[in-house]
C-alpha cells in the first residue's frame, strides 16, 4: 500500500506533519497515521494562546481502534486551531494533509523544523 507523503513538508517519527507558511507552522497527522488509526471519532486540541513544547503531547486523537497522543513538532504558541475537527473528525481520514489539519503554531525558535524528517526520510521510516 502506498501513502501520500507531500514533499513540501517536514515529518516527525510520531507521524505528525508540519508545513511552514510565513513563519507559522501548520500541524496535522500523516496519511499513514490516519490509515493505521482507522476511522477517527474524536480529536482533542489545545486552545489558541496555549504554549506547546516540542516532543510533548499537545492533544489526543481517538479512533474506533485506539486512543493516541499527539506530539508537538516544534515549541511555540498556538495561534489557530481547526475547530471543524470537533464536529467532523472524519476530516482527518478524508483529507489528512488538507482540511484535516489540527494546529498552527508560531515557533519560539527558528530552526527547530530543520531537525524533523524530510519526506524521503519519513518514507523510509514507514516502509
Amino acid at each position, binding site marked *: 500500500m502506498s501513502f501520500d507523503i507531500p514533499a513540501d513538508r517536514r515529518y516527525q517519527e510520531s507521524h505528525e506533519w508540519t508545513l511552514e507558511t510565513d513563519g507559522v507552522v501548520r500541524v496535522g497527522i500523516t496519511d499513514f497515521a490516519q490509515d493505521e488509526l482507522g*476511522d477517527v*471519532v*474524536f480529536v482533542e486540541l489545545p486552545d489558541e494562546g496555549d504554549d506547546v513544547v516540542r516532543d510533548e503531547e499537545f492533544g489526543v486523537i*481517538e479512533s*474506533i481502534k485506539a486512543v493516541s497522543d499527539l506530539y508537538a513538532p516544534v515549541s511555540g504558541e498556538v495561534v489557530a486551531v481547526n475547530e471543524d475537527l470537533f464536529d467532523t*473528525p472524519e476530516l482527518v481520514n478524508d483529507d489528512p494533509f488538507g482540511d484535516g489539519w489540527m494546529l498552527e503554531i508560531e515557533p519560539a525558535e527558528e530552526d527547530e523544523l530543520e531537525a524533523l524528517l524530510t519526506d524521503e526520510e519519513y518514507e523510509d521510516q514507514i516502509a
Partner: protein
Amino acid sequence: MSDDRPGSTDDEGSRPEQSRYDQARYVRNGRYEPLLIEKDSTRVEIGDDSPLPEELTRDDLELPAPSEPELVRHYTRLSQMIYGIDSGPYPLGSCTMKYNPKFTEDVAALPSGLVHPDRSDESIQGTLEVLARLQEYLGRIGGMDAVTLQPPAGAAGEFVGIRVATAYHEHNGEGHRDEVIVPESAHGTNFATAALGGYDVVSLPSDEKGRVNIEALEAALSENTAALMLTNPNTLGLFERDISEIAEMVHDAGGLLYYDGANLNALLGRARPGDMGFDVMHYNVHKTFATPHGGGGPGAGPVGVVEELAPYLPEPRVRESGGGYELFSPEHSIGHVHGYQGNWLVLLKAFAYIARLGDEGLTDSSAKAVLNANYLASQIEYDVPYGPFHHEFVASAGDQDAADVAKRMLDYGVHPPTTKWPEIVPEALMTEPTEIESKETLDQLAAGFNAVAKEDDEALEAAPERTTARRIDQTSAARNPRLSWHALEEK
C-alpha cells in the same frame, strides 16, 4: 458489648433489626423518604425544595406500568437477543469466560452473609472467618505468604501489587528504581499499571518460540529495574520454561517478579507462582474461580505477596486472634484501596467455589482446561503456530480478516474467540474454551471454526446475518452516540 450503629444485633430495641436499618437509611435531611413501593403510585411528585438547578429537574416522571407477564416477556426477549455463557460456548482467550455455578449465588444470597460492614469485629466473626480462610486458600494456591482481599478488580490488583513493590523499594532506600519491564505480548493492563504507578515501561521482545527472550531480558535489567511483570503460561498459552533462571536474573538485579494471575487456571493444583520465584501476584477470581465477570460491576482482584512484602499490603487484613478473628493494619501499609474488606459477596462466591472443588477438584479443573484447549486446537483447520500450549492457544486466520471470522462465527451459533491479539500471530484467533465444556460442545465449536475457514471474503464481510443485530457501525456509534431511548425517537 455496646454498639449503637445501624443493624447491630445486640440492640435491645423492640424493632426488628432490618427495619431499624432501613429506616436509618432512608431518612434524609431529617425527613423520611419512603421507598417507591411504599408510595403505592406510579407517579413521583418532586417537591419545590430540590437542590438541583431548575433546568435539570422535571415536574413528574411517567413510569411504565406493565403487567407481570409483559415484564417477564420483556426481559426474556432481551436475554434472547444476546449471547452469553448461558447460551453456548464462549471461548474468548485471555478473558476466561467460565460458567458461573449457580450454587455460589445461593451461598451469596444466604441472609447470614448480608451483614453491614460497619459492625464490630465481635459481631461478624463468621464473615471474618470466611475472609481469613479465603486469604489462606489463595496463599496456598499461589504459594504466597500473605494475601489482601481488598482490590476490587484484577487491574486494581495489579496496581496494588505495583504500589506494594514501590513501597518496598522506597523503604529499603531503593526508591530510584523507576523502570518496570513488561513483555510485548503482555496484557495491556500490565503496561497501564506500570505507567500509572509512575514507572517507565521497558517493553521486552519475545524469542522466536514465543517465550521471554533471555538475552533481551539481560539487556533490559539494571539497577533501575523495579519489577518484571509476567504471566505464566504466557499470552500464547506457553509455559515459560526458563522461569527459575528469569527469577534469579530479576532478583540479582534487585528487582521484584510480578505474576499476572490471568492464566492461573492453567496451573491450579500443579504449579505455584511462589515456587517459581514470583514475589507478588494478583488473582482474577472471575477467571480462576468462576465468579461473574464484572461488566463494570463489583469484582475482586486479591493480591498475594511473599513475607518480605507483607508489611506493605493494604489495610484492613484479617487474622486469627485469641480463638477468633480480627481486622488489622499491616505495619507499613499502603493504606485503603477500596471500601471496607473488599467486595465481600464476590469474595464469598470465590470462597464457595474453592471450598466446593477442593484440592482434587481444582487440580481436575486445570487438567480439563488444558485438555479442552488442546483437543479443540486439534479439531480446527486454522494453523496454530506456537506450542505446546496449555489452557489457550492462538490460531491464525491466515488470509482471512480475524474480525470478520469472528462475526461470521456468530452465524454458526457459537461465540468467536478473542481476535487480532496478541499481535505476534497475524490475524490472531485467541481461543480458550475453559474446563467447563464437554467434547460434544467442543466439536460444535470446532464445526463453527471450520465452516468459516472455508468461506470467501464476501460471506465474511456480510456477516453476521443470523443475529438479532447485524454488523454494528462502530464509527457512527462513536461519532454520534445515542445513549438513551429518547434518541430512538429522533431518527
